């Protein structure tokens, strides 16, 4: 794996499977009396959140603490950041404090990429969601959840599995990261949205496009509903909430069109009554709660793989097997 996780496109198939397999092992931890590993003892991880996100931040924090890292929460609200301090100065401060990794959530697309490429700090940069760009750990936990249901087992990928992602693709970092990662893992991705909520140039993306949800449902193994913010209505992306949910929302009738084995996913937070009805959200086919639990395992895996071993100044670090040739120090 590379030293940073900025984009899901940075992950090769081997990298992605390594994360998923590692996460699968780490998932066992939640069943234990002591849900903690000493692996990142003495490493400092900073959660740098420029945007409110209780879920993602909590998930990362649990993952960091389970690996025994020293966790510092650096929230933009109420700090010098809200007083106009630049990202650069914030980064220099964190560097001076000895941050080994920075988990960054930022409202500006590309902010994590900028941090990773700059010489402002030397630790690993983990993208916890940037603007409308990417959210790679979300894609990893989604793939993890899909694999458990559709092709379980260490070393398995998602070859041939059909994933349909429905909703505000245009503004979705989850969709962007998922299309990269799912394609890498061999899945076929279909985006379903009104044309106003699809980015220009999407024909070039490695996925299918449809404006008609009903026609896609019978050919879907995993259906991911994305949140649609009500504000989009005011910018004329669609006429009314009712019309949106009639055409693109998931209710019990639509869910019945899915194959027996198909799962319904949602990255949360859900807008019940908009893209998903309560009936679907609370149904056993809906993996929302499971996704949250998987999020911790996947983030632990990412943190371990980026921070657990030796940190090299640059260049990729190839994972080594425990029983490989080891030389005495």
């Amino acid at each position, binding site marked *: *794996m590379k030293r940073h996780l900025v984009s899901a496109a940075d992950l090769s198939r081997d990298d992605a499977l*390594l994360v998923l*397999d*590692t996460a699968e*092992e*780490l998932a*066992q931890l939640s069943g*234990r*009396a*002591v849900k*903690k*590993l*000493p*692996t990142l003892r003495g490493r400092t991880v900073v959660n740098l959140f420029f945007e409110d996100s209780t879920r993602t931040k909590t998930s990362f924090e649990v993952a960091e603490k389970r690996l025994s890292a020293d966790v510092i929460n650096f929230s933009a609200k109420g700090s010098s950041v809200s007083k106009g301090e630049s990202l650069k100065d914030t980064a220099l401060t964190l560097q001076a404090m000895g941050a080994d990794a920075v988990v960054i959530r930022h409202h500006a697309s590309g902010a994590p990429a900028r941090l990773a490429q700059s010489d402002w700090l030397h630790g690993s940069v983990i993208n916890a969601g940037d603007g409308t760009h990417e959210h790679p750990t979300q894609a990893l936990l989604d793939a993890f959840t899909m694999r458990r249901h559709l092709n379980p087992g*260490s070393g398995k990928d998602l070859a041939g599995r059909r994933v349909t992602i429905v909703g505000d693709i245009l503004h979705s970092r989850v969709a962007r990261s998922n299309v990269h990662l799912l394609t890498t893992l061999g899945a076929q991705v279909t985006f379903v949205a009104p044309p106003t909520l699809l980015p220009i140039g999407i024909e070039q993306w490695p996925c299918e496009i449809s404006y008609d949800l009903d026609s896609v449902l019978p050919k879907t193994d995993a259906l991911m509903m994305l949140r649609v913010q009500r504000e989009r209505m005011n910018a004329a992306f669609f006429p009314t909430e009712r019309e949106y949910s009639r055409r693109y929302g998931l209710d019990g009738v639509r869910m019945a069109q899915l194959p027996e084995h198909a799962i319904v996913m949602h990255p949360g937070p859900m807008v019940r009554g908009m893209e998903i009805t309560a009936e679907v959200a609370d149904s056993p086919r809906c993996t929302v709660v499971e996704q949250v639990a998987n999020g911790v395992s996947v983030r632990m895996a990412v943190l*371990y*793989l*980026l*921070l*657990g*071993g*030796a*940190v*090299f100044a640059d260049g990729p*670090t*190839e*994972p*080594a*097997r*425990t*029983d*490989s*040739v*080891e*030389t*005495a*120090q």
Partner: protein
Amino acid sequence: MTTHQEPTPRPPHQVLDGTDIARVITRIAHEIVERAKGAEDVVLLGIHTRGVHLARRLHGRLAQITGREIPLGTLDITMYRDDLRLKPARALEHTEIPPGGIDGKLVVLVDDVLFSGRTIRAALDALNDIGRPRAVQLAVLVDRGHRELPIRADYVGKNLPTSLREAVQVRLSDADGVDAVLVGDRDYAARSSQALASQPTEPHLPE
């Protein structure tokens, strides 16, 4: 000035063959039954990688001797290693704790070679997070000495005095197609890529 002459590395030679290994495992199984008074509360945990294969064989022997299925599990100690920062992050192996757990049990850790003792130290830490055994014992195929921690084995297949220049290789049919224990110069394997290519297993070096 004297020119330093590197001695030519010795190729590995066999110290235990398949029959020896089978005999040793049988003996250890009997010792466990004897010392654990019928092995009533024993849980076998094999340490990855070859400890897992040895534990499975031991499990089979114990079933023959006692007529009972002794709980068998596996332990990956990667996350507890003290040298994690010396190498890139490693892939994890599967840890499988038997359904009955380890609380109040006599856990017998199984590994192939006991050397510095650091692997066992890590295994004890891992056990500590998993539960509270009544006691923990250690069974190894080979004890080659050179301990760096106050750790000893309860069941030893063979004591094998070695020099630090040497490497001990354990080959097991489950992983390597053949049962054997070899001792050779560490440099032999390290220096000669042909030697490495011709040997399916890696030398067992200080972990």
